[in-house]
């Protein structure tokens, strides 16, 4: 019998939630990730909005997963010390044409069970958001759209999975494998692994994994880049509600939104590309985003940019999720989780576990799970710097303490690269972008990363 019940390929948002769900249901989980850390792919860069599903396709699996994921996040977040920045969102009409579209959006929201939406007049908008440009004509308020920390939840999910026996292997790119009628043998960069069933959560490589292991792919990933600019924390007092545009065919459009870390972001763009690796930022696109942000909130013109980044959506040639089972091959693909995976991940995991059950698999669920907690990085809640014994502040802009960094480095799932440390602590992600702390972080992480900060070490 294979050592693991399931091998989950990919530790993105979806794979991490999947590992947790299967571990809680009593399955012996193996999680194989190509990168040096979790969230090395599409999931490292997104808008961090917890969506209600108000504008999702009615009756879709995506909508069901989003709403289930949303509900489960609210249910478990206190136990794992995960934040929720309650902002609400407004779909703002800036033209008469957009105004005309609000009816349809409101109808869709109600159809989708998001019944607490309501219309705001221009003056109600101004009252709620005095710094928003007076060009806002009308809006649909969606009170349930909120902001989360896009990284910590997935660390928490993996910690819980690990606590319940999941084996998590990084730097383990799946290179090939074979099915013997009973289970799979996977060939990876870290050697061979055996598992009965495979759950393909490989994100931007979901189709490639199918081709490699099944011989052919049932869908095609078409990466869609989204660039962002992040404003300094001074911007956070200028806007509280998420500002959504009236969406068009291709994308949800450019959003202006607070972050859990006390900044304001503008983005994303939507740019189709072939490349699955490079998520570059481009000056022209960034300038356009900043212009757009300033058009929405003119006072942003006086606020500095803190960071710029880009992510790749694992979109496919179709709009919806690409979830399918091949019971005769002990196989499940969870692909094309394009632009709602942060919200839907817990719901997707529960849905997929249901499909797995339909394949005839049964385990003994964990009766009394442990609930590991993660460090709070959200600005609106107590941070380590306010508590005694933190050592000193290492990253001044984000007020990251020596203790936080030590705990991340010594924790049960230490970061595998510098990006992983940043996502666990926010060190180096603030307005000075490492001017003050980069060298100290190089010293504190010496000998730990295959890709070290100091070049001496690399040599």
């Amino acid at each position, binding site marked *: 019998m294979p050592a693991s019940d399931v091998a989950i390929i990919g530790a993105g948002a979806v794979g991490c939630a999947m590992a947790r769900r299967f571990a809680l249901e009593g399955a012996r989980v193996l999680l194989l990730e190509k990168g040096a850390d979790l969230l090395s792919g599409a999931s490292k860069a997104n808008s961090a909005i917890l969506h209600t599903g108000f504008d999702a396709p009615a009756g879709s699996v995506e909508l069901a997963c989003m709403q289930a994921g949303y509900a489960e996040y609210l249910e478990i977040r*206190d136990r794992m*010390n995960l934040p929720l920045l309650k902002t609400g969102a407004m779909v703002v009409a800036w033209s008469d044409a957009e105004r005309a579209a609000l009816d349809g959006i409101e109808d869709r929201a109600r159809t989708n069970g998001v019944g607490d939406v309501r219309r705001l007049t221009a003056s109600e908008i101004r009252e709620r958001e005095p710094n928003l440009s007076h060009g806002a004509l009308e809006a649909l308020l969606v009170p349930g759209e909120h902001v989360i920390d896009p990284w910590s939840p997935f660390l928490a999910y993996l910690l819980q999975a690990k606590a319940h026996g999941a084996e998590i292997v990084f730097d383990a790119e799946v290179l090939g494998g074979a099915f013997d009628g009973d289970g799979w043998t996977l060939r990876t960069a870290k050697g061979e692994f055996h598992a009965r069933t495979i759950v393909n959560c490989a994100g931007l490589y979901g189709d490639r994994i199918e081709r490699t292991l099944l011989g052919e792919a049932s869908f095609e990933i078409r990466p869609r880049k989204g660039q962002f*600019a*992040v404003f*300094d*924390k*001074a911007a956070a007092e200028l806007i509280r509600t998420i500002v959504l545009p009236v969406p068009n065919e291709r994308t949800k459009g450019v959003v202006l939104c607070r972050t859990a870390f006390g900044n304001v972001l503008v983005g994303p763009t939507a740019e189709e590309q072939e490349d699955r*690796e*490079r*998520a*570059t*930022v*481009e*000056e022209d696109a*960034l*300038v356009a985003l900043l212009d757009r942000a300033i058009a929405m909130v003119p006072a942003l013109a*006086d606020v*500095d*940019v*803190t*960071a*710029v*980044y880009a992510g790749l959506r694992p979109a496919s040639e179709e709009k919806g999720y690409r979830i399918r089972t091949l019971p005769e091959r002990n196989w499940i693909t969870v692909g094309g989780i394009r632009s709602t995976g942060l919200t839907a991940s817990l719901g997707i995991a529960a849905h997929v576990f249901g499909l797995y059950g339909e394949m005839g698999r049964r385990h003994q669920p964990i009766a009394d799970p442990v609930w590991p907690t993660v460090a*709070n990085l959200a600005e609106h*809640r*107590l941070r380590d*710097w*306010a*508590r*005694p*014994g*933190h*050592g*000193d*502040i290492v990253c*001044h*802009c984000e*007020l990251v303490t020596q203790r936080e960094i030590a705990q991340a480095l010594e924790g049960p799932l230490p970061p595998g*690269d*510098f990006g992983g440390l940043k996502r666990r602590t926010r060190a180096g992600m603030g*307005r*000075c*972008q*490492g*001017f*003050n702390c*980069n*060298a*100290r972080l*190089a*010293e504190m992480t*010496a000998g730990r990363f295959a*890709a070290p*900060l*100091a*070049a*001496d*070490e*690399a*040599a």
Partner: protein
Amino acid sequence: MTATPAPRDDGVVDVLIVGAGPAGLSAATALKRLGVGSVVVVERETEAGGVPRHCGHPPFGMREFSRVLTGPAYARRLAARALEAGVTLKLGATVVGIERGESLVATLTDDGGLFRIEARRIVLATGVRERTRAQRLASGDRPIGVLNTGALQAYAYLQHLAPFRRPVIVGTELVALSSLLTCRSVGAKPVAMIEENAGPTVRRPFMALPRLLGVPVRYGAHIVDIRGKPRVERVSIRTADGSVEDIACDGVLFTGRFIPESSLARRIGLVVDPGTRGPSIDQFGRTSDPRVFAAGNLLRPVETAGWSWDEGRRVAGFVADDLKGRLPSADGATAIEPGRGVRYIVPQRLAPGGGGLDRLQLRVSAAAKGRLVARRNGAALASVALSAQPERRVLFPAAGLAAGPGPVVVGVEPLSRVTGC
């Protein structure tokens, strides 16, 4: 979730100074020498001295100690002098907020957690930093090896590490030249120095240094791509003739284009000048809250350590006067506004009655020759001959400008237009 622990109370002081760089330390030392009772300097780093702590190169200290020192030696001397004068130094203590109600109360954090200090006056001396790659909106990947000079210096002189071996240096301000020396000290060999403009920002003779070190300089070069994973592998630049060229490297150093570290000033609600990006002050260093003063490079990008030191000392004199009730009211100040060709002016306001810093400091936005003229309602009040480059110090006499109603605009004018003074 646990509630925020109540901060400890660290009592009341006469003057609290935020930042132990040259400006903060000299202000503190001067205050003690002027007989002010309790003077506390708080510094978020665990060592005093500010930026010079990690400028391993000379020349520092001519003005202050009449000798040439390296940055670290200079930083140590400034700190020793402050301690000798009776200043209390709190290191590893970060100011996270200042309540400006009836009294001024700073909230800080150190290893002991949150604490509060009430102060009769506060001096902000939080310095400057360099514009980051993100702020410059430079295109490309975001790999390891992209940093500012401040970070390079900290690698070299504080951690004794090299962040890269073959970097591209971006910029030609003095700090870019200093970075060539810092690179040398860690055995890194820059492969190119690139500059957006058609010529260097520093005076031409300085550009002998890259030549001497064999570092090619490219003018009119704009970064269009930074590539590499996990570390920088190459930079693509577009040159003046529109062609794109790749430079193989393992790092990108973005130098200079300084901006004041005014995040605390902003957070506590002080008026920040869009020109300098530092707090707006009058000639006594008073910010929009006249109990809160500011000095050093927080005021503007960018001056030398010696200048910041001197400014700290002078602002200390005004603080001491203020504690004795001897400063004129901050009300009714005359606004001093940048006119044509002027990027910023500091002080941004002159309180009635004169005194204080006797010169306006400004920078031109582009190379300029002619006269610098101060006008109120079109009438010229004063003027000086001008031949200036961007990023270079320009001074203008402040005397007499405050007399009269309405703002004063200081701008660059061609020689022929100036009349009436």
